C-alpha cells in the first residue's frame, strides 16, 4: 500500500468517512447495499400482508353482505381523516429525506417531528375507533355481538341508518369481517408504532447532526419503510372503510 505504516494509516483515515463500515469498499457501495436490503425487507412485508389480503379477498367474496354491513360500522369521517393524516406524514417524511440530502439540519428535525406527531395523531384516531368497537362488542373473540346487524334499529350511533337487517347466519359472518379489520389495521398499527419509536430515536440523532453530513442512508431507508406503511393504508382504507357506501 504505502512505504510507511503511519502514512498508510493516515491515508486510511482520509479515505473513509467515519460512517463507512470496514467491509465496504466505497460509501456508494454501502449506501446501495443498505438501500437494496431495505427494499428486500419491504418485499418480505408485502408478502406478510399478502396473506391477509388473500384472506380478505376470499371472505369478501363469500360474505359480501356481512362485509358491507361491517364496513358501514366504521366511521367514514375518521377513516378519511386518518388517510389524510397518513398521506401528509408521508409527505413530511419525504421532505425530511430531502432536507437530509440537502444537509439542512433544522428542516430535517422539523420534518421528523411533524412526521412523529402525525403518526401519533393517526394512532390516536385509531384508538378512538377501536374504543368504539370495543364498546359495541364488535371485537371478535371478546363477547362479540351481532346485535347491530340483525337489528340495526337498536344501533343508535350507526353511521348508515338505512342498512337492512342481515339474516342471522350472515350477521355472524361480520365477525370474519371484523377479525380481518382488526388483524389488518392492527398489523398496520403495529408497524406504525415501531416506526414512531424509530422516529423518536432519529429525532435525537438528527439534532446531534448525525444525518446531515452526507450519510443519509438511515433516513432514506426509514423513509422507505414509512412510505410502505402508507401504501398499506392506501389499500386498507378503500378495502375496509369504503365497501358500498351508498344506500342499498
Amino acid at each position: 500500500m504505502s512505504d510507511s505504516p503511519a502514512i498508510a494509516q493516515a491515508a486510511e483515515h482520509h479515505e473513509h468517512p467515519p460512517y463507512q463500515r470496514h467491509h465496504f469498499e466505497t460509501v456508494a457501495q454501502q449506501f446501495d447495499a443498505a438501500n437494496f436490503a431495505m427494499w428486500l425487507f419491504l418485499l418480505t412485508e408485502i408478502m406478510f400482508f399478502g396473506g391477509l389480503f388473500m384472506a380478505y379477498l376470499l371472505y369478501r367474496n363469500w360474505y359480501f353482505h356481512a362485509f358491507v354491513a361491517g364496513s358501514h360500522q366504521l366511521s367514514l369521517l375518521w377513516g378519511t381523516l386518518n388517510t389524510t393524516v397518513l398521506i401528509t406524514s408521508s409527505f413530511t417524511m419525504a421532505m425530511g429525506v430531502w432536507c437530509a440530502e440537502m444537509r439542512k439540519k433544522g428542516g430535517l428535525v422539523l420534518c421528523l417531528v411533524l412526521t412523529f406527531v402525525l403518526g401519533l395523531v393517526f394512532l390516536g384516531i385509531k384508538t378512538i375507533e377501536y374504543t368504539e368497537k370495543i364498546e359495541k362488542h364488535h371485537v371478535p373473540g371478546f363477547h362479540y355481538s351481532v346485535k347491530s346487524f340483525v337489528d340495526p334499529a337498536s344501533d343508535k350511533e350507526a353511521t348508515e341508518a338505512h342498512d337492512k337487517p342481515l339474516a342471522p347466519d350472515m350477521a355472524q359472518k361480520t365477525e370474519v369481517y371484523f377479525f380481518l379489520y382488526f388483524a389488518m389495521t392492527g398489523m398496520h398499527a403495529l408497524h406504525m408504532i415501531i416506526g414512531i419509536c424509530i422516529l423518536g430515536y432519529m429525532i435525537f440523532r438528527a439534532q446531534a447532526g448525525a444525518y446531515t453530513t452526507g450519510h443519509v442512508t438511515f433516513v432514506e431507508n426509514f423513509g422507505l419503510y414509512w412510505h410502505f406503511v402508507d401504501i398499506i393504508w392506501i389499500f386498507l382504507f378503500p378495502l375496509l372503510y369504503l365497501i358500498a357506501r351508498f344506500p342499498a
Partner: protein
Amino acid sequence: MSSTVVALPDQSTARIPKVNYLSKENGLLSWLLTGDHKRIAILYLISITFFFFIGGAMAGLIRLELLTPQSDLMATDTYNKVFTMHGVIMVFLFLVPSVPATIGNFLIPLMVGAKDLALPKVNLLSWYLYVFAGIMVLYTMISGGVDTGWTFTTPLSTHYLNTHVLSTGIAIFIAGFSSIFTGLNFIVTIHKMRAPGMTWFRLPLFVWSHYAASILMVLGTPVLAIAIVLVALERVFGIGVFDPTRGGDPLLFQHLFWFYSHPAVYIMILPGMGVISEVVSTFSRKRVFGYTAVAFSSVAIAVFGFFVWEHHMFIMGVSNYSTLVFSLLTMLVAVPSAIKIFNWSFTLYRGSLTFETPMLYAFGFMGLFTIGGLTGVFLGSTGTDIHFTETYFIVAHFHFVMVGGMLMAFLAGVHFWWPKMTGRMYPEKISQLAAVVTFIGFNFTFFPQFILGMLGMPRRYAAYPPEFQILNVFSTAGASILGVGYLLPILYLTWSLKYGEIAGNNPWQATGLEWQIQSPPLTENFPEIPIMDHEAYDYEWLERQQQREAQSVG
C-alpha cells in the same frame, strides 16, 4: 500417479497461520458480539449440530416405537409429540438453516470476494433469532410438547389440542425471520459486494444456488409467518378465520402454509445442490458441465417453486381443475432437477477423478436425490398422488430428498470446507467409512418405507397392522446403522480440531477464491480485495498460478 488430489504442506514445518479469524480475539464475548460471518457460521454450525442430534434422537424414538405393531414403547400422544418435535426441529431448526447459515454464511463472502456479508449485524441478529427460536422449541419440549405435526393443520391446531401450540408457533415465526434475514443478507451481498471482475457468470454455482434459495426465503417465509399469526390469533381469541363453523375456510390455511412450505423444500435442497456442484467439479478437476444450465436451473427451480404448492392438497377437496394447473407445473419443476443430475454426471466425463470423502457423499447425494426426485413425480401426478399421499411413500420420498439429498450434501460440504474452516484435515479413511455407512444405513432405513407406502401404511401412526412389521423392522435396523454413520463424523471432526493434519491453503487444489487465501482465513478474508480475471472452475488458471508461485519461490 497418486490416486489422490490432496496436496498438503510439509507437516513437519507447516503451521496454522498465527493470525486468523479464530485467533483474532478471544473470549466468549468476542464470539457472541462478533460481526464476522465466519464466526457466525461457526456459531450456527454448533447450534445446528446440537438441534440435529435432538431431532435425531426423536427420530430414533420414532423408529424404536415402530419396531412393533402396537404402541408399546410410548403412548400414542407421546408418539405424536415425538414426531412433531422431530419434524419441527429438523425442518425449521436444521434443514432450512443447515447449509445456508453455516457453509453459506462462511463462504458466500469468500466466494464473491468480499470482506464480509453486506449486513454483519443483521447476520448476528439472525443467529440470535435462531437461538431464541431454538430455546422456545426446547421450552415446548420440556414443558410437555406439542402434537400438531409440523404442518399445524387447522382446525386441529386451533381448536382441538391443548398442547403448546403457541410457543411452537412463536418459535417457527422467529426462526422464519432468522431465515429471512439470512436470505436477505445473501441477496444483497451477491448483488452488491462482488469483487472487481466477478461477473454473474464467473460466480461459483454454490453462490447461484444460494441466491435462488435466498429469493425463496425472502418471498416465501413471510407468508408462513402470517399463517402462523392467524393460527395463534384463532387459538387465543377463538375467532374463526380458519374455522368452518364460523364461516372460515380451513383450506385457506393449507394454501397459505404450503405457499411457504413447498418452496421451503427448495430452500432446503438448493444450497445442497450448490455444494454438490463445487465438490463434483473439484474432484473431477473439471469445470462443471453446462455451467449456465446448472445456474439457470437453480433460478428456474426458485421461480417455478412458487407455483406448485397445491400438490400437497390434491386430495383435500380443492377444485379438480386447479389440480391440473398445479400438477403440470409440478412436472415442470422436476425438469431442472433432472438437468442438474445429468450435468453433474457429465462433469465426471473425461475428468480426472479421485474419491475423497466429500466426493463419496456427493455420489451418495446423486443416487439418493435421483430416487427422491423421481418418486416426487409419483406424488406430483394427481392420479398416483391419491394412492401415495399421506402414506410412508411420502415419508420415504422426502427423506430421500432431505436426508439422502440435503444431509449428504451438508456432510459433503462440511468435510470439503473443514480444512478451510479449521485449518486442519479430517481423517480420511474413517470419514470414507462413515460416508459408506451412512449411505448403506440410509437405504436400509428409507427404502422399505417406499414399499410400506405402496402397501398403504399411513404416516404418523403409532400402531399399525402386523403385516407391515417386517419392513418396519428393516427400517429400524437401518436407522441404527444410520445413527452410527452420523455419530462418527462428530467424533472424528472434533478429534481433528487438535490432531488433524495441517491443511494449508488449498488442500484440494480447488479453484474457488476461498481456496486462494490462508486457512483458516483472516478476519477480513482478503488482505487485498482480489480481482477476478478467470472463469469459475478454471483449473488451467490454477495450474498457471501454481507454476508462477513455484517459480517465484524458486
